[in-house]
């Protein structure tokens, strides 16, 4: 991206970056001390999620079911906390309910659930299904001649699921340019680095071979994220995937680039450190 292009995004990019860290702070509060929570994969996705919810997507803060709204599907549903944080910022969820996440009877389930949470567009969590669901929604929207777009976030570990590639063929065969996938390429699965545990790379070549338009960016550079989302929307007759290179656990030093906080537990001291580090940016 050229310097003069980047300048075009400066103001919006700053706001998105601020919101991303606000979401991270909210994630830390939801996990709290001594409880398991998917910190790593939530934090890696923060900038993309913030860009979508607070800049790119057409939404109505008063009506989560607004007809021609853009849809976001978190196929890597274990990162639900970052989505809940965003839905609370918009106002679809009462912020006071965030602390009840995963508790019995809570509106905030361990994985996204349309029957419990306003603003959630699909049930995900059983990995590999979100892109197929996104294709179905996009086909339905196309029949209705709706301008709405469908965004779906995948994990790089999730790409091991064969259904992803069935869906990749579907989107390209049907020319679903209304579908934009974002690969949160943080390099780690639950057990360790993707490269050494079960390598789903190369990513760009695979998606290109499946007929997709591929854009590769730094997924924490909010100007790049905004630019890439606009490029995706301009691409006609084929779906786009934005390969967002990210850092697992981004923003919390002890959780970065490790599988330990994929679904780890923080001590009181770690939580304090984490909140201190993220608060610097909010």
């Amino acid at each position, binding site marked *: 991206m050229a310097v003069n292009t980047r300048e075009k995004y400066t103001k919006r990019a700053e706001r998105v970056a601020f919101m991303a860290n606000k979401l991270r702070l909210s994630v830390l509060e939801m996990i709290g001390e001594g409880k398991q929570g998917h910190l790593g994969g939530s934090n890696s996705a923060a900038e993309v999620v913030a860009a979508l919810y607070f800049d790119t997507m057409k939404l109505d803060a008063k009506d989560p079911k607004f007809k021609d709204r853009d849809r976001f599907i978190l196929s890597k549903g274990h990162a639900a906390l970052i989505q809940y944080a965003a839905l609370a910022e918009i106002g679809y969820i009462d912020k006071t309910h965030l602390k009840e996440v995963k508790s019995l009877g809570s509106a905030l389930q361990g994985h996204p659930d349309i029957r419990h949470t306003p603003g959630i*567009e*699909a049930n995900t969590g059983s990995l590999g299904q979100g892109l197929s*669901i996104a294709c179905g*929604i996009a*086909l*339905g929207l196309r*029949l209705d001649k709706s301008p709405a777009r469908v965004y779906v976030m995948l994990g790089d570990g999730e790409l091991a699921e064969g259904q992803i590639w069935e869906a990749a063929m579907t989107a390209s065969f049907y020319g679903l340019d209304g579908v934009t996938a974002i690969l949160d390429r943080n390099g780690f699965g639950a057990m360790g680095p993707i490269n050494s545990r079960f390598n789903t790379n190369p990513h760009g070549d695979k998606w290109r071979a499946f007929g997709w338009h591929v854009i590769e960016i730094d997924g924490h550079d909010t100007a790049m994220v905004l630019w890439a989302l606009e490029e995706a929307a301009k691409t006609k007759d084929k779906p786009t995937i934005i390969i967002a290179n990210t850092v697992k656990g981004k923003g919390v030093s002890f959780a970065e680039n490790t599988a330990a906080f994929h679904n780890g537990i923080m001590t009181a001291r770690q939580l304090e450190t984490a909140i201190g580090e993220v608060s610097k940016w909010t």
Partner: protein
Amino acid sequence: MDVKSQRIAYGEALVELGTEHEGIVVLEADLGKSTMSFMFEEKFPCRYFEMGIAEANMISVATGLSLAGKVPFCSTFAVFATGRAYDQIRVGAIAGLNFNICGSSCGLSDFGDGSTHQSVEDIAIMRAIPGMTVLSPADAHQTKKMVRAMADHPGPCYIRVNRSDLPILTESVGEYKIGQIDVLRDGAESHVVIFATGIMVSMALEAAEKLAETGIAATVANVGTIKPLDKAAVLALAAKAELVVTAEEHSIVGGLGSAISETLQGNLTRPIRYVGIDDQFGTSALTYDELLVHYGLTVENIVEAACGRPKTAGGSI
């Protein structure tokens, strides 16, 4: 007796529904000529989605279409629809979406293709999913009515459809209400009640004729909806009889017989005998009939079960 294939009725029903409702969409996994969904494709190509041989993706795409407000019908062979896409169906059911699945060539009706293509456990699999409706029509007319009921039903529905021409037993007019059990032969003070489903319903009626000749009065109930089972109707019919017989072209593990047993358990004490496949996979045969004999799915097997006689083939125990 008139005969007609349930799968042709399925194709006709889709076309009728598609004419009435723009929201009806159909998905297929490269078996449209066999499931007869191609009839819909010919009429409404824009609302027909060939998903290739990728059943898991097909079901998830269908749930996406449902999320976009459409009413999807997915079809493929019963064994693939339920086995290859189990988790995708489950996730759609968790979401409570209106999506419909047609498991075609159910049971042993794809006789030549053998065990990989024959579904002996699809009812069990679908029945275990909370909130799933499981339908098993006895003939082509009932198939058509059920497909219509599925479109109107708000949650996920599964229908198992036979490949062969089957005798017409029900009326072409009227509606099917999900849950409905039809008493096709009422032996008022009957010795035995036969709960049958699918292809076994016509055999149960024939068995009842034979039983009558020996002085045994049999009531025959066509259980079109295996889930949610009309428990009150089952208990009322069983209460009038001394013996309960179930008949299904399915494993005795988890199918209609299990559902009837679960209903009787703790409510009513009656001896129960199952006519079904005795915990085995299918196998190839040159004709459907010889396969039905091989697995003990015949009129004679039902008669034997109703008389309390020991089995002569693998089916009734």
